[in-house]
């Protein structure tokens, strides 16, 4: 049954076409909404075609890690909520959800896009903890790019609450979260001799190879993760990185 | 007689063992284009007709024609399921086990073979997804009474048997035991001196690749 789901997509791709008549290097239509959740310090909803993801950012105060006593803390979590797909189950995150959260986390963390040095309240005692929670609402493929995009948009629109008498005053804000880069994640897939981006749900099932690349504004690569079941040649990896870097520039233009 | 070369050198998974040259690529080997590679850590065997590799370790996977020792696991309506020291079990149909006509509506076939019975039989069929059938229709196939069974690495069985059966005959004559060796790595032994026979067999398994093993076993059994 599972294999059949991708069969038609595979046939089309081998003829040079995609189910939704896109070119191999086209993303689906992307819709971005900012600040959709008033109770969150920052939030965003991203739709890539029918794939839908909501990211919410909540700020709390807490103790810093002992090896970075004057830096804020970033925590990224993902929920593959059962409402989004018949393949998701209730309960603690499975390995796919954990992997996705960690890849999004690394894209943000390694790019140093959040100036964590500016999130210190009392050195060694109190810093801002930035919780990025990603909720999958509909899985029609390429959750990773949608989640990473939602996360960075949410962070760019996050405001730090005021602190009065050592208490956080929700709803009143002091300043913006200091975010200086816009890391963009691009997943590149390979089917036969064709490279494609933004694989939809059916296409994901028949990819021969899959590489996730996170690229910063200055064209530096911040994170890489090979995904998928098959081996890939070194030449193909180089080609996929090139495609990801090119697409990341386009997608970044959508982010404000 | 077809010449089969069995080089003593050990090959590793992925190691190149020869050009295909129209030969059959047998067990333990795979090919890409004209080049044949080993699937196992093992000993390559090449002949004019076939290239294959015997693994030095690993569990038993059933193959057509193997003579094995099996244990009755369950009694069914028209046959028995038997365990064969593999992730797969085999089915022994009634017709392949009993010569006379049996009216299954009246007879409880456990009178022929019951759960726990040990048999020496042959693998008569293996399908692609490893559904296995066994048969007693062959020379030497029989129920084995009494005795005990030990497990060894299946790929060591040929060494335990020896050239033309020389090693197992040596053990049988020196210990007075009855011994049946199954290609599936099970060895059945019956006799008063079975402890000695078992020690010899386990020594062969452990030191199968060493030189002078036959002499060592002779000495061990001579005492």
């Amino acid at each position, binding site marked *: 049954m599972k294999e059949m789901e991708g069969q038609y997509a595979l046939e089309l791709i081998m003829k040079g076409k995609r189910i939704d008549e896109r070119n191999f290097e086209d993303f689906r239509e992307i819709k971005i909404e900012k600040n959709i959740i008033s109770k969150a310090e920052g939030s965003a909803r991203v739709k890539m075609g029918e794939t839908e993801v909501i990211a919410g950012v909540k700020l709390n105060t807490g103790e810093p890690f002992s090896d970075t006593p004057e830096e804020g803390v970033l925590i990224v979590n993902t929920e593959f909520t059962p409402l989004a797909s018949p393949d998701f189950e209730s309960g603690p995150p499975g390995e796919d959800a954990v992997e996705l959260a960690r890849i999004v986390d690394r894209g943000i*963390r390694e790019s140093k896009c959040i100036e964590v040095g500016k999130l210190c309240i009392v050195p060694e005692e109190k810093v801002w903890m930035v919780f990025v929670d990603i909720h999958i609402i509909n899985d029609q493929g390429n959750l990773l790019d949608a989640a990473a995009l939602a996360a960075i948009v949410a962070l760019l629109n996050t405001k730090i609450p005021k602190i009065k008498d050592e208490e956080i005053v929700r709803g009143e804000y002091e300043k913006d979260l200091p975010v200086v880069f816009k890391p963009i994640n691009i997943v590149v897939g390979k089917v036969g001799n064709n490279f494609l981006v933004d694989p939809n749900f059916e296409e994901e099932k028949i990819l021969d190879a899959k590489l996730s690349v996170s690229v910063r504004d200055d064209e530096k690569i911040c994170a890489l993760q090979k995904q998928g079941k098959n081996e890939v040649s070194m030449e193909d990896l180089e080609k996929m990185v090139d495609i990801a870097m090119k697409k990341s520039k386009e997608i970044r233009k959508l982010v404000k | 007689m077809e010449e089969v070369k069995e080089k003593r050198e050990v090959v590793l998974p992925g190691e190149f063992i020869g050009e295909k040259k129209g030969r059959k690529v047998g067990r333990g080997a795979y090919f890409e284009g004209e080049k044949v590679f080993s699937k196992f850590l093992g000993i390559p065997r090449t002949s004019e007709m076939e290239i294959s590799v015997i693994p030095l370790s690993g569990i038993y996977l059933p193959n057509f024609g193997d003579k094995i020792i099996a244990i009755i696991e369950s009694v069914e309506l028209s046959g028995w399921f038997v365990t064969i020291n593999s992730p797969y079990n085999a089915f022994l149909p009634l017709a392949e086990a009993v010569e006379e006509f049996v009216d299954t509506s009246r007879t409880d076939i456990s009178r022929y073979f019951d759960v726990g019975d040990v048999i020496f039989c042959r693998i008569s069929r293996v399908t692609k997804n490893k559904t296995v059938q066994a048969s007693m229709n062959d020379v030497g196939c029989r129920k084995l009474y009494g005795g005990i069974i030990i497990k060894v690495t299946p790929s060591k069985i040929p060494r335990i048997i020896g050239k033309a059966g020389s090693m197992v005959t040596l053990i049988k004559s020196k210990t007075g035991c009855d011994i049946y060796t199954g290609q599936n790595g099970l060895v059945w032994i019956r006799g008063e001196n079975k402890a000695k026979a078992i020690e010899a067999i386990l020594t062969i398994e452990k030191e199968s690749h060493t030189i002078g093993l036959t002499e060592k076993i002779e000495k061990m059994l001579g005492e």
Partner: protein
Amino acid sequence: MTKTEEKMIVNGKRIDGRKPDELRKIEMKVGVISRATGSAHVSFGNTVALASVHGPRELFPRWMQESESGIFRCRYNMAPFSVEDRKSPAPDRRSVELSKVIKLAIEPALFLEDFPKATIDAFIEIIEADGSTRVAGINAASLALAHAGIPMKDLIVACSVGKIDGTLIVDLNGKEDNNSECDMAVAMIPTKEKVTLLQMDGVITRKEFSELLNLAKENCKKIYELQKKALKEKFG
């Protein structure tokens, strides 16, 4: 592990005295756990990984069985005493992710179709962690699988590369891991030069990526020779 302000490369030598392209002392031994079908011990300097393989064995529950091919399961775990600050025995998110990527790194080399309906289970335990644990684990699991007589296209070999103080290095130890500008883990099918695992975090240019990939390939070849030697020693 703490970050440090000190320079990681002084006079062309790393903090443990190695040159940038030098691997740590590597030890590999096969057949260390008698109850396992296959097993191996691999250490890179102070990083120690044990791997054991059970199977192929019958897979339960039955509904998990694939009628056309076997399945491969892999678990990566770090012992609580393997790190400086005791790690809770419960599987953490990192171990969950690594179990997944390591399984995907090894699977392409296995002939799963040779044992339908069965399962092969590999377990990796990191006994001591000093950087590049997933790499040591993959090298150990690969040896354990060959030792277990699992049919494979080839061994899988892995190594870590990275960038520190602007220099590209090989086989990162724990301190380097925490203070590097980039660390990258690569696993390959060595004779076919195909990549089965690639994970990188840090900040690198496009060109540095190519250089690191090639550096990984060269060092995987060296580690492969050590794997072959360890297997032949056991059975030769």
